[in-house]
């Protein structure tokens, strides 16, 4: 999205003479309106829920908070952590994101590099063996049944092990490594460096941009993952944030009663504005689950355009 794109946009537009300029203006107006509307449609839900979580809960429950917050307070964010299991789920989600992402990035970097080694025994076969899994799978129930026979149900490793080898990320890294000058590897090889030394000393440092992209994708995947918990986990100690959010949407009313009971026992009595309602619990947990994505999104946004373009060359 750089100067070149800007140049193109300007070029496209000034192709004209006066006589059709009214149509041009109308088209522009239409384009701006439609994109503004769609952009608003994309952020309004987030905005709306955020202002609801910090507004008086009784107003919020009646659907009176629409465009701006009223009677701002932050009690909801303190209260939701009184729900048993929320901290635990946060630790599970963070744990799988950190561990899973590191392993996926490491494995993708290594395999992407190794598959670029033309002299590897059976390279073509193993590369296809890896890539074809993107397009073909046994189905969720056969997968569930075999995971169970491997005793990976109700096991933290079920979140990690299946995600380590990720074909799409391997393609990204391989394409990137192949686009770097061969001489770098050759020079290191002449200096007597082994394959592992070349990987760690030459490839890893130059692959940082693509590895950052892979790390972001992998982390988002891990954080958002829901299906594996749904299929493989019944032990509540292993519930992820996504999974308990899904549960909360359906049982928020009993949770709000519980939090209110806990608060009633304490010295600070909840007023109507800070008393937990089904709406306040549900929305606050939603914001807690989406917050990490919203916070890092502006930072990683610039990476993925680059990343996807590298991948698009040969996808």
């Amino acid at each position, binding site marked *: *999205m750089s100067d*070149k*794109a800007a140049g*193109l946009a300007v070029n*496209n537009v000034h*192709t004209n003479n006066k006589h059709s300029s009214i*149509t*041009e203006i109308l088209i522009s107006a239409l*384009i*701006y309106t439609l*994109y503004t509307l*769609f952009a608003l449609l*994309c952020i309004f839900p*987030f905005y709306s829920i955020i202002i609801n979580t910090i507004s008086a809960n009784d107003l919020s429950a009646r*659907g*009176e*908070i*629409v465009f701006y917050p009223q009677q701002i307070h932050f009690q909801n964010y303190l209260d939701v952590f009184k729900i048993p299991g929320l901290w635990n789920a946060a630790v599970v989600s963070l744990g799988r994101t950190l561990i899973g992402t590191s392993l996926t990035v490491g494995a993708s970097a*290594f*395999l992407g590099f*190794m598959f670029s080694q033309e*002299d590897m*025994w059976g390279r073509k076969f*193993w590369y296809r*063996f890896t*890539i074809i*899994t993107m397009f*073909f*799978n*046994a*189905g*969720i*129930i*056969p*997968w*569930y049944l075999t995971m169970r026979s491997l005793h990976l149900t109700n096991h933290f490793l079920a979140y990690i*092990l*299946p995600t*380590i*080898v990720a074909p799409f990320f391997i393609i990204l890294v391989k394409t990137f490594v192949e686009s770097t000058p061969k001489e770098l590897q050759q020079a290191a090889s002449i200096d007597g460096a082994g*394959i*592992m030394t070349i990987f760690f000393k030459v490839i890893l440092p130059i692959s940082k941009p693509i590895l950052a992209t892979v790390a972001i994708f992998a982390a*988002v995947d891990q*954080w*958002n*993952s*829901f*299906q594996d918990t749904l*299929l493989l986990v019944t032990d509540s100690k292993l519930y992820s944030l996504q999974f308990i*959010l899904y549960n909360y*949407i359906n049982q928020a009313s009993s949770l709000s009663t519980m939090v209110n009971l806990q608060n009633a026992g304490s010295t600070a009595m909840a007023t109507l504005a800070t008393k937990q309602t089904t*709406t306040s619990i*549900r929305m606050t947990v*939603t914001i807690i689950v989406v917050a990490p*994505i919203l916070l890092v*999104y502006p930072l990683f*946004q610039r990476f993925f*355009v680059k990343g*996807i373009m590298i991948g*698009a060359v040969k996808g």
Partner: protein
Amino acid sequence: MVRTKEYRMKSESIKKFLYILPFMCLLAIFAYYPLYGWVYAFFDYTPPTPLSQSTFVGFKWFRSLVENQVKIDQLLQVIKNTFGMSGLGLLFSWLPMIFAIFLNEIKALRFRKFVQTVTTLPNFISWVLVYSLAFSMLSSEGIINGLLNQLGFTDSPILFLQDSEHVWITMWGWSIWKTLGWSAILYIAAIMSIDESLYEAARVDGATRMQVIWHVILPSLMSTYFVLLMLQIASFLNNGLEQYFVFQNAFNKENIQVLDLYVYNLAMGGGSYSVSVAISMLKSLVSVVLLFSVNGLSKMIRGESVV
């Protein structure tokens, strides 16, 4: 001398393979071994009895899919839903391309960046979160109903999420909401790589903005569109589970059940593992045939495979 060199190269080549072997084992276990799960389709399997003690029943479960009118109707409804929702997706598969083309027409660079950033965001949140947003907005006590009520448009809340009749369209709408901005990125990249001289030539010819789009931009995006369309056709039966699982409820179940959700409900809800695996298996086989067909089609038309 020559021999030792050859030997050394050979051993180097094997050594490289040995480095990736552990990863290939992981792949074998988690991507290939589940295929073994297909044997459940040929047994009368009811947990907790292990498979080894279940009776072999041959194609019984496959036949049972079509053994009476009720079951046929049920399966037909599921197939209809799958075709309906995937069909809507295919019908509007050009949307991301158009989105990218007109986004590129926006001259105000900051506004364009803002639109791109904001519309890509929904792609990075999970379906559970999308459902949670939908619930907060559209449930009976949601923000939209609150607003409608305050403005005096409605007396009683509209039950958007329970609506069954339009669920194909609403599901399509949510997936457009989630993926439109993201899917446009590939096209934006393609537009940025269009040769400057093509615009130059069009300008010399006095082309209008729409003519530039029609004769310069659109043709250069067709190959990207074609590849993505082929991949979309190949995954026609794979709607995925999550979206439909989170949005399903007692009211919309009939029209929302796509194959992936049906398979899940049969096994995890109803305990009919064997039937579910049988359907899964058929689905995977059809998908492979589809993939090879579109690949062949692509080779025929473009002389290049998509996979």
